[in-house]
């Protein structure tokens, strides 16, 4: 009954010496929690409600936040279309170099995002190959919404691929095999078995990707300073007018991001036994 004794010790703090390590860890963990919580909390509570309201009424601010939201939504849709199939392949098949591919997917997370923006510019810029190719169809990236979308896609798609991959890995391949023997084609099997069973991971990966896209600054700024997404607007107001003018926009952006994040968490945890 050692484990129940331990559990009791945790609750009653009776076996205090036994938990010295745990206690130290709690203290150290609190530092991180406060480090995250205090700045966000302080900024939200110290902002004047009337100024906040004024900011909401500011068309430039609303446009920027809206642009952030829908650009990221487009990026996420593209991520779903191209990333989910990749996630399925990575979850189901072993092939030479698979580890390299898996590592490669996560590279955008570790690359400085301004550098990522520069790299994208070298492919999607007007004088470069893809930029020219899309230019034929009248699609421009630099200083335009498509540029914002690809910048967001680049930096946030790893979150969706990784999450979807974990989701597919959690689906017993034999479920798919049984479905095949019962007469379902590979496509039917994917749609009626694999996808519904992995959807929770795909959905939480999507919302994470969406939220990550909304919060992106560096890569987007390099490709498209204008039209202005919310983080760029925060930066510009801070640079041009100082802290007092940038703060309400920042608060609004944080609230929007938090809302999306909380919704995503709620979806991911709903019904989990």
């Amino acid at each position, binding site marked *: 009954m050692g484990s129940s004794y331990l559990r009791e010790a945790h609750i009653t703090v009776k076996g205090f010496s036994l938990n010295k390590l745990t206690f130290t860890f709690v203290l150290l963990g609190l530092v991180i929690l406060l480090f995250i919580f205090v700045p966000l909390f302080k900024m939200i509570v110290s902002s004047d409600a009337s100024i906040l309201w004024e900011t909401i009424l500011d068309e430039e601010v609303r446009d920027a936040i809206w642009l952030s939201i829908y650009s990221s939504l487009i990026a996420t849709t593209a991520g779903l279309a191209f990333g989910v199939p990749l996630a399925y392949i990575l979850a189901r098949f072993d092939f030479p170099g698979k580890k390299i591919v898996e590592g490669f997917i996560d590279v955008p997370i570790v690359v400085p995002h301004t550098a990522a923006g520069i790299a994208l510019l070298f492919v999607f810029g007007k004088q470069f190959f893809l930029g020219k190719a899309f230019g034929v169809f009248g699609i421009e990236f630099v200083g335009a919404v498509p540029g914002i979308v690809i910048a967001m896609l680049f930096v946030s798609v790893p979150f969706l691929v990784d999450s979807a991959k974990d989701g597919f890995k959690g689906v017993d391949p034999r*479920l798919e095999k049984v479905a095949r023997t019962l007469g379902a084609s590979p496509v039917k099997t994917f749609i009626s078995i694999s996808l519904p069973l992995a959807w929770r991971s795909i959905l939480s990966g999507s919302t994470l990707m969406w939220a990550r896209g909304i919060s992106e600054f560096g890569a987007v700024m390099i490709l498209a300073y204008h039209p202005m997404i919310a983080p760029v607007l925060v930066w510009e107001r801070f640079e041009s007018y100082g802290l007092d003018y940038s703060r309400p926009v920042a608060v609004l952006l944080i609230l929007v991001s938090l809302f999306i994040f909380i919704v995503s968490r709620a979806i991911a945890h709903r019904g989990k036994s």
Partner: protein
Amino acid sequence: MITIRELCVDLGDFVLENATLDVQNGEYFIILGPTGAGKTVLLETIAGLYSPKSGAVWLQEQDVTTLDPEKRNIGFVYQDHVLFPHLTVADNVSFGLKQRKKSKTEIREVANWAIELLGISHLLKRNPDTLSGGEKQKVALARALAVSPKVLLLDEPLSALDPETRESVQQQLQDIHNQLNLTIIHVTHDFEEAISLGDRIAVLAEGRLAQVGTPQEIFRQPKSETVARFAMARNIFTGEVKDGDDESAVMDIEGTQVTVVTDVRGKHRASLRPEDILLSNEPVHSSARDSFKGNVTHIVDRGSTIYLTVAVPPDFVCLVTRRSFEEMNLKEGGDVYVTFKASAVHVF
């Protein structure tokens, strides 16, 4: 009829070699083998879930070697049920019918038929994770049977069940097989399950088919030591077979001259089942029998039956009922006579 010709499957760390089998229509066919022998791979290859490296699979006069699994019309049931967790019992059972684009009434009728057959009508609205092991296995069976498969492939269908449930599901399998005249290929590592269910048994060991035959053939005349061990012959000897008196043969096993019935001569192996050995406190004399005095060296109590090792030499593993064990007052270190028919010794 299912015909498997020189089938080879290469899965990197596992290789199935040259499997050749004929399973008749309406036959209850058992593939018996230890864990890791390639039984599941063989079944999955028949179902089309693996492509063989070489060889062919024929199903009812049709070469299906390269046919997609969904076009083979084969029922597959795994050991741990593998029910679709996001679908109710009813939707699990009708899954295959829905793939066949049947009318709603037809789907309901056929699904009901399968549900009645397995006696699971009280479970229809339940989710798979709320079912017991036996219930899950019945749902998996109903799901496979609902599509009227040409053959039912069962991968260790009883192994995950508790003994009581196992017995009832086993009976149900037997009944369904008889009732529908269904061709079944059933994979198991359990010899007793194989003996009681199988019309014929194939023994698979280390990726090779060691022997195919009726339960009696596998039981009485194992062709190799692997099969003999798997058939739980327990007594496997090596010795020189020579001419005996009166056209009989004698096998020299560790210095003991054992009369056997065989045409072969030279160095061979022989198996003898524990239950074919009679133990007695007095010698038994008969021309058709071998009788030796030995010493009880080891006793394994299995409850209603008891295994004894008697050193003659060689060591004979013998089986007695608890009653005779107590009546004979057998003890470790005591002397006893082992007697068996010459024909009970199977030389191979």
